[in-house]
């Protein structure tokens, strides 16, 4: 009996501690930022959001994130396909390398791109002689975004390809379908949910990216200043309300994407 009482106290203590931690660490800060953005009323919020530079930075971020997502959807689908379907020397190594962008500090990623594409590097000079610059311009930002979001599409398409029953493909062949037709009518539809959810996660991550971008973007207001760097600037210049307003805009967008991905996944697995 004492055993029971003791365990009841313990479990009560554990439960409250874990729930409190959860609420304080996750729920509170998120509520806090929404509260702060609206602390000056709706008008102040709208003013902050529609401020020319702020709005431009958001649009730029969304545009570049979309470009990098499209690139990643293409590369990622190809890579997932190759890594699952083909056997070749070095496959395992490449497969492990996929996770590298997740493991690498984003500041290090930024530095890598800086070194590789800078004006003194061969690539930078090559681009220069062709008449455009990569570093501190939009291409550099896209490259940074592509790098940090590289694993998402691959990692969400791979399990689907693994699950895909070979007999489905064989059935298509027995019905006389050509390989190309089989790919587009049988295999691609199977991969599509993975490509979509991976792309959405990549998009949301690209919107949020800071470390890799801040070092390579040049951060010229109105031209290469993306939203997260804009927020950082507002914090540095002691304008938390302005920072919070843009943050809320980005957050809501990301939450929406996350929610859609979750919704689609639960629908798919039927849980």
């Amino acid at each position, binding site marked *: 009996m004492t055993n029971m009482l003791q365990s009841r106290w313990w479990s009560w203590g554990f439960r409250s501690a874990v729930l409190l931690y959860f609420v304080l660490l996750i729920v509170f*800060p998120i509520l806090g930022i929404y509260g702060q953005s609206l602390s000056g009323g709706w008008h102040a919020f709208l003013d902050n959001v529609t401020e020319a530079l702020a709005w431009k930075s958001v649009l730029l971020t969304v545009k570049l994130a979309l470009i990098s997502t499209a690139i990643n959807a293409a590369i990622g689908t190809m890579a997932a396909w190759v890594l699952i379907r083909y056997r070749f020397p070095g496959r395992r190594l490449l497969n492990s390398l996929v996770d590298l962008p997740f493991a690498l500090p984003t500041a290090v990623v930024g*530095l890598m791109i800086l070194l590789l594409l800078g004006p003194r590097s061969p690539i930078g000079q090559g681009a220069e002689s062709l008449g455009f610059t990569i570093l501190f311009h939009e291409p550099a930002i896209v490259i940074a975004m592509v790098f940090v979001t590289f694993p998402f599409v691959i990692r969400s398409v791979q399990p689907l390809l693994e699950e895909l029953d070979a007999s489905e493909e064989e059935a298509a062949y027995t019905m006389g379908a050509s390989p190309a037709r089989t790919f587009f009518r049988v295999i691609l539809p199977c991969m599509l949910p993975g490509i979509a959810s991976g792309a959405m996660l990549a998009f*949301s991550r690209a919107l949020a990216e800071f470390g890799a971008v801040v070092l390579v973007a040049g951060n010229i207001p109105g031209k290469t200043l993306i939203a997260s760097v804009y927020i950082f600037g507002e914090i540095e210049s002691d304008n938390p309300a302005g920072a*919070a307003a843009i943050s809320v805009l980005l957050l809501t967008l990301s939450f929406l994407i996350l929610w859609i991905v979750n919704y689609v996944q639960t629908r798919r697995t039927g849980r």
Partner: protein
Amino acid sequence: MMRRLWIGLTVVVFGLLLIIPLFRIAQGAFDSGWSGFWHGLTRPEALHALLMTGIIAVVVTIVNAFFGVMLSLYLVRATWLGRKLKRLMNSIVDLPFAVSPVIGGLMIVLLMGPDTALGALLGRAGIDIVYALPGMVVATLFVTFPLVVREVIPVLQEIGSQQEEAAHMMGAYAWTTFWRVTWPSIRWSVVYGVVLTVARCLGEFGAVLVVSGNILFKTQTATTLVYQDVENFNLTAANAVALALAAGSVLLLLFMEWAKSRKEVH
């Protein structure tokens, strides 16, 4: 023929995007030879920054591993939480993934900065949160919270509660059941989640930059030092620290692969 083409294309993409940049860092760190690298890494500010990163990584990993496992257990098993509430909490857990690190940092500043009620209260008690170690730890805790939970929850769901119930029927209470029945099944997922957490702690930049104020010899971490070096055009020194971080990440990546293979076996 198609096969060759696709494989070739993939290898090229991987090479351009992942492998060459990695080598470039290594090469950059040794631009001024071994001594340049060694100097960049053993500058007093670099040592201090690495120490800060280490402290944060250790504290955050321990705290989040513990709370992450506990929360996963509750979210999957607890009958004292309503189903709807559990589902809501389950989706809230993911939110830090969707939050830009800069915004994560901003949240902490807004909530506990010196201008806020909580910050002022703690400040009067002599505890600085923002622009000090505690705030950096909290920011990293926030950013890394989902990692362990996301690894452990699917495994708990997959193994089901029957083995635990079987242990209960044989007289084992919660503590014994956890250590003897549940833990052996989730062990490798926890390890995997912990490795991810460590990697993220080492690499966390945005949130820490905002919260720390990046004060030399006080709140500077390895990543914010790299940032500052780059801003000061001190590329060789930046490269040295970056190489150390990258090496750490690659090691963790290898460890991750190993943990993943163990996870699949059990």
